[in-house]
């Protein structure tokens, strides 16, 4: 048994204190996030309902993301089709390209790419917007004018992301499949009808349904993380930057975790 000498004891104690403080911080943060989500579910059902603000946020989050989503989805379709061709060509199975691409896009690529773009564009936007509102006392100004800032700012944004990310995902799906069609049409001469017949033959209702549900979960995560980080930002402009950055990093991390977990659930459902 090794005995610590006098020099080692304080160092070890300090290390233990640092670790203990870190755990404290992590659990406090988890508790705060849980309270934040709890408050969301409490407030979302209570009147007054912020329909106007929800629609405005849907426009900001959904419609204004369309150019970026269109470009990304289109390129993904083309690139994925191009990269898959050599492998299938080795087995003389290029006729399977539409089926392969449709499965990849519908089941994984469209939800994930939309969520990642959403985390980057929408998560940072929400984090920065609420963060700057917080440090410039705009949230307090709302509170003193007898308006519930949580309902007006947080509930509306989280609902908007939860509704719009699945809608954007469906759009990404369509654009990516169109991009893939252009590629397969130029190389294999596959007609529009043949291509889409093969695409829809390969996928099932469960594929689309699970992607929509998954995207709604991603959207909820992006909204909650962005709002939480922005709503609790401090330390002036530095805090706003941190809130925006942290919103993106945390949302992306959580999206990957959720993707992994949902994959297990959907696979289990598929073989029921």
């Amino acid at each position, binding site marked *: 048994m090794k005995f610590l000498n006098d020099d080692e004891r304080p160092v070890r104690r300090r290390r233990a204190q640092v670790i203990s403080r870190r755990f404290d911080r992590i659990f406090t943060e988890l508790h705060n996030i849980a309270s934040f989500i709890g408050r969301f579910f409490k407030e979302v059902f209570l009147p007054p309902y912020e329909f106007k603000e929800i629609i405005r946020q849907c426009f900001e989050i959904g419609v204004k993301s369309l150019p970026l989503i269109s470009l990304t989805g289109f390129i993904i379709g083309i690139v994925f089709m191009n990269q898959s061709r050599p492998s299938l060509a080795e087995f003389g199975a290029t006729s399977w390209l539409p089926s392969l691409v449709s499965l990849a896009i519908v089941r994984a690529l469209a939800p994930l790419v939309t969520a990642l773009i959403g985390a980057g564009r929408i998560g940072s936007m929400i984090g920065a*917007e609420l963060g*700057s*509102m917080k440090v*410039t*006392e*705009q949230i*307090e*100004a709302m*509170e*003193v*004018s*007898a*308006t519930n800032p949580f309902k007006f700012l947080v509930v509306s944004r989280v609902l908007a992301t939860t509704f719009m990310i699945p809608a954007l995902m469906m759009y990404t799906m369509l654009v990516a499949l169109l991009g893939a069609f252009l590629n397969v049409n130029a190389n294999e001469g596959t007609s529009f009808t043949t291509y889409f017949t093969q695409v829809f033959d390969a996928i099932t209702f469960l594929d689309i349904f699970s992607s929509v549900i998954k995207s709604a979960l991603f959207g909820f995560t992006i909204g909650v993380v962005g709002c939480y980080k922005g709503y609790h930002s401090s330390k002036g402009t530095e805090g706003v930057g941190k809130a925006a950055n942290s919103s993106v990093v945390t949302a992306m991390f959580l999206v990957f975790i959720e993707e992994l977990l949902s994959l297990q659930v959907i696979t289990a459902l598929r073989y029921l």
Partner: protein
Amino acid sequence: MKETQPVIDRSNCVINIRGLEKSFGDLDVLRGVDLDLYKGENLVVLGKSGTGKSVLIKIISGLLKPDTGTVNVLGQEVPKLKGRELDQLRLKIGFSFQNSALYDSMTIRKNLEFPLVRNRRDMTRGEVDRMVEVVLDAVGLSQTINQMPSELSGGQRKRIGIARTLILQPEIMLYDEPTAGLDPITCIDINNLINEVQSRFHTSSIIITHDLTCAKDVGDRVVMLLDGQFQRQGTFDEVFDTPDERVKLFHDYNFIN
């Protein structure tokens, strides 16, 4: 300076605070504050930065909870109020923030409408527009109605901030450092506006400031917050008629520098 003498009803106390204490961690900010604000009165709270002046008005408006003490506003105990009750009281209190706190993403019209359309749902579009015009006219900025807050100067933003609080026709106005960061001429304009609000809208106000010119121009009564307590109180001249070095230093620094 005030053009007309204000009508102060000393039998009607709109804010009554007793034994108010507030600390943040180890830092004791307010240590037993007692305060009365009478109807129609402009009360100036003077003090150095970081002495808890803003904390005091945030407690009055229910944004912060006190550790101990009673905070009675318009007959209601603020720390005990929640939800709708607190909102109803807040409609009677106007809060002008130090940095104006205008909503960046909204035009001036939308900023002014915001408290009104959310709290007076029975008002028609025409009535809302008319109220917006009235308060904009009161602060002399009718031409800015379709501008964004970022297009305004600091003084204009302060005025719009005050207009936004006036739109709900509050009984009490709380001004947090109304002249901070403004040039001397704009400060005089803001001081005149505070006096005009008092006489035209018959408000009772607490003005938080460390600007002695502002205190002298707008204050019917001045209290000085030192070490978490009100050490001096009276008219402007009475407050500074003291051998207390801390008070004299505050006065000399403001006027000599």
